[in-house]
């Protein structure tokens, strides 16, 4: 039992890190990491929503009819997002200002919907809470790392403290272009490390297809496939058949 609980928490930290291994929630990752403190704020806010929504969804998993589960999950997540928005606005107005519209956009963060669909709707409350906490910690750690790197290189500070003039600020790193670049390099590093240390070969492929872990990946993939082979109509027919079931 103990192992199972520990595994529920630890897998999100490194092995299945939502940002660097599964590549989910890319929008906030790129957008708010111009400074380490913003990354931390975003990470903590998203973790709060993730843990709460995982608990709520796990508690209600037997009540929610299968057909309306996605809208139901979205409403639950939106509720907790609103709570977190109010808390951040009240207690840390500077973070609220820095995160801007990305704070309400936690509601469409695919890590949260992804965990609800893949984990909380199938597992017990305790496990779901730990899973949320683990995934949230992994997300926070990745955001903090990325924010730290971009702030250090782009502004020459660490948590708004001067770094002692080690390097002159390279402004491009706090601009959007730098965000894409640092994220690309971090994923490269994560891939290299997992090639070396992860003996489970199946996992190495995870981010070959960008959206492997996204809730709508299967659909997206089917869309691209059918478009490229000129079978869009077939996809629709299949979807209609699914709807009629």
């Amino acid at each position: 039992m103990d192992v199972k609980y520990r595994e529920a928490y630890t897998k999100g930290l490194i092995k299945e890190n939502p940002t660097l291994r599964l590549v989910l929630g890319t929008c906030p990752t790129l957008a708010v990491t111009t400074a380490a403190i913003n990354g931390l704020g975003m990470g903590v806010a998203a973790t709060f929503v993730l843990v709460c929504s995982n608990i709520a969804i796990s508690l209600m998993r037997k009540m929610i009819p299968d057909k309306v589960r996605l809208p139901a999950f979205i409403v639950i997540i939106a509720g907790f997002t609103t709570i977190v928005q109010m808390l951040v606005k009240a207690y840390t107005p500077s973070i609220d200002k820095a995160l801007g519209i990305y704070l309400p956009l936690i509601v469409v963060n695919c890590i949260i919907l992804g965990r609800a669909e893949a984990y909380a709707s199938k597992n017990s409350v305790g496990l779901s809470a730990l899973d949320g906490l683990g995934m949230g910690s992994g997300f926070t750690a990745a955001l903090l790392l990325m924010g730290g790197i971009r702030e250090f290189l782009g502004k020459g500070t660490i948590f708004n403290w001067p770094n002692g003039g080690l390097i002159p600020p390279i402004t491009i790193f706090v601009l959007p272009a730098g965000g894409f670049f640092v994220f690309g390099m971090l994923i490269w590093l994560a891939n290299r490390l997992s090639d070396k240390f992860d003996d489970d070969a199946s996992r190495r492929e995870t981010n070959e297809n960008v959206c492997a872990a996204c809730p709508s990946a299967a659909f997206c993939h089917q869309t691209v496939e059918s478009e490229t082979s000129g079978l869009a109509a077939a996809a629709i027919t299949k979807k209609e058949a699914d709807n009629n079931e």
Partner: protein
Amino acid sequence: MNSTGLFAILIGSLLVNNFVLAQFLGICPFLGVSKKLSPAVGMSVAVIFVMLMATAATYPIYMFVLIPADLKYLQTIVFILIIAALVQLVEIVLKRYVPPLYKSLGIYLPLITTNCAVLGVAILNIDKEYGFAQAMVNSLGAGCGFLLAMVMFAGVRERLEVAEIPKGLKGLPITLVAASLVSMSFIGFQGLFGL
């Protein structure tokens, strides 16, 4: 009320504050559906369509229901529900009355509910205190900006397919580096119209 001119808003959301390359909204479809040109265009057209519909629906509801009832804090929940319902509705209406359009756009619609660009534009229109016409133009610019980024990037990625890339960088890392370069070119628009 914000008094920025309509043309400045259009250019602003199309180029200067491009949704994908400057504001990081809608990165998932940007990375996921940009492998080939035709799905990239289909997806973008669907996004433009839904963005305009979403703005036309959320803006009046915010102004005439949420504000008078003093329920501003319900913005996030109400907007996401409206967008989800709207996407369903559009799907049903297109299927029934305009089957050819449904065939080309329909498959992308379910993906759009969780696209942060659509919810993002609805919230931004409120945050910036735009009037209704300004909000619609802003949404049009944002959608066309998404199309522009997708089309440019699909072109870049088709070239990447045949390029010789170091093993570790294959797949996502090189895609992000390419996105970084495309985004860098958009820095050139910074400062247009003082936006």
